[in-house]
């Protein structure tokens, strides 16, 4: 491969890596900060992707809209709608043990998938929404537009990281960690455990929606196939735990490293004879499943273990 080819492979790798980084940072807000298990990431991602797709694409006879609005509007609406879904599910489940939230969130992802496939007036069913714009498309085409999109994605990653970082260091983040590590103690000093948990779930859901929107713009086409739970929910979990849950740098590092491994195994398996190439995707799934078990048992703190910021307590006499 010539040099520029390599470079553009790297760009497309970093675009997907960036989108996964946003998902991972969002999951870190829910799980890393608050200990909330979300097994339905794909659902929030789909809500965001479809909102953005319908709002920004040109008018189409196949589905509602498109409204041809600016991409920023699409991103905001994607975040808001996804946040509302997160709020509804969190309100019901956060007062219970984390397992209930896991069950309910996997349910909501399933219902969203059903709705996306069946409500053809809204989403064009399994055929998907096409002609989704990319930012500044009128000025840049082909590889240049990839480069522009790469910058766009990483601006969003930077914003997400900044939000996550500020939240983590804030008093709010401290309360979240207190609740995560000892709910009874946090409650006994008068913290409203439920509403803090709902907040952290909603903020995470908003950014998952934004990540979905980014991927819709990147692929310019979005169909139910792209919300495959294995590729979204599961991979994001592996990324966060391997990177270091609770640590925002770890979330981004985990996303990039696991995405690199995932992409590289694809390159390798493409070299295999065709009979094995079809099976290789199952081998990859198997390996990622085993890898998760390894990380959980031997490597739980992840690559970048959580380091809580120092408390700035002044001693009094």
């Amino acid at each position, binding site marked *: 491969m010539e040099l520029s080819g390599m470079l553009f492979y790297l760009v497309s790798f970093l675009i997907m890596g960036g989108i996964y980084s946003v998902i991972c940072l969002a999951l870190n807000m829910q799980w890393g900060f608050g200990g909330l298990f979300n097994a339905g990431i794909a659902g929030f991602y789909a809500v965001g992707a479809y909102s953005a797709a319908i709002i920004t694409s040109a008018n189409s006879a196949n589905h509602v809209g498109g409204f041809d609005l600016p991409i920023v509007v699409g991103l905001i609406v994607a975040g808001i709608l996804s946040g509302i879904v997160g709020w509804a599910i969190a309100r019901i489940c956060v007062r*219970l043990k*984390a397992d209930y939230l896991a069950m309910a969130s996997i349910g*909501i992802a*399933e219902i969203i998938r059903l709705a996306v496939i069946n409500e053809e007036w809204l989403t064009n069913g399994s055929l998907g929404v096409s002609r989704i714009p990319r930012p500044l498309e009128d000025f840049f085409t082909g590889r240049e537009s990839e480069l522009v999109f790469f910058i766009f994605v990483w601006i969003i990653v930077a914003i997400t990281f900044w939000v996550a970082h500020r939240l983590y260091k804030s008093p709010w983040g401290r309360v979240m960690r207190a609740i995560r590590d000892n709910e009874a103690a946090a409650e006994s000093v008068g913290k409203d455990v439920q509403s803090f948990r709902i907040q952290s779930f909603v903020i995470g859901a908003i950014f998952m929606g934004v990540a979905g929107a980014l991927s819709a713009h990147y692929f310019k086409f979005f169909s139910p196939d792209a919300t495959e739970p294995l590729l979204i929910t599961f991979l994001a979990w592996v990324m966060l735990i391997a990177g270091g849950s609770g640590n925002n740098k770890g979330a981004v590092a985990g996303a990039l490293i696991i995405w690199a491994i995932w992409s590289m195994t694809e390159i390798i398996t493409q070299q295999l004879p065709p009979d094995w190439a079809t*099976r290789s995707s199952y081998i990859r799934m198997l390996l990622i499943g085993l890898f998760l078990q390894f990380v959980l048992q031997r490597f739980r703190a992840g690559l970048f273990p959580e380091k809580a910021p120092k408390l700035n307590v002044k001693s009094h006499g």
Partner: protein
Amino acid sequence: MMDFINFYLIPGITLGSIYALGAVGVSMIFGILRFAHFAHGDLMTVGAYFALSAVWLLGIPALAAIPIAMALTCLVALFADRAFYKPLRQLPTIYTVIASFGVALIFRSVIQLLWGTESQVYSVGFQKPIVLFDSLRIATRHIQIIAATAVITVALNWFLHHTQMGKTMRAVSDDPALASVAGLDPEKTIRWTWIIGAGLAAIAGVFVGLDTDVHTMMGWNLLLPMFAAALLGGIGKPLGAIAGGLIIGIAEEICTYPILGESLISPSYKSAVAFVIMLLILIFRPRGLFKGRLL
């Protein structure tokens, strides 16, 4: 009226029986090991595929293959517990939930590797339904599934109330601290929980294959209604889970029955019924219908 019974109620009870058998395991594992077992659906798939191999290799009917499938599925579950869940036992149970999410993926990808992804059936050919009282038509497979579930329910009830291990399990599920103080062996209880949960999951998997077909996503697709059934019946209440499974199966089928020419919901949203029931239970009666545990 007969249409309602033949095409909605009987299939509903059949589907409910399958959910019930799966939900027993979910409920017991949640009650005794304290975590939501996300790999339970795929454990059903494992059972269905073991039976498929037995049918292929030995040329026996699917029903006769059930004991083989149960035994092998139990071994798989015990192995998964030893390798993936036991090392995490001392941690907060949410780590085990995450691990089970991964185990589900491991089960499914191994099945896809070994058996391929095409849908399979246990036997080809059309079975003529049995006609009773002139108008009641029941498919043979539905009779088999419903009757077997009834027998299993009676046997499970006897096991839980009249054997030492059954009583121990109920005790651990009700109050683990007290049970451990009383000297009940937790690891042995856990082993039996897996044996019963996996055995029933294997039966449920074979029944799904009898009722429709065997494919690699079959169990994962049933996970949500099984969770809903276990919650509806109350966590740690196996008999409650059976009732919950039946209610959800019947509800799913009846919701698509055209009352006044219009069905309540479109058949494509059938699986949303379980989810709605689950949310209602979590909001209004988180301990389920039969006063299960609230963890």
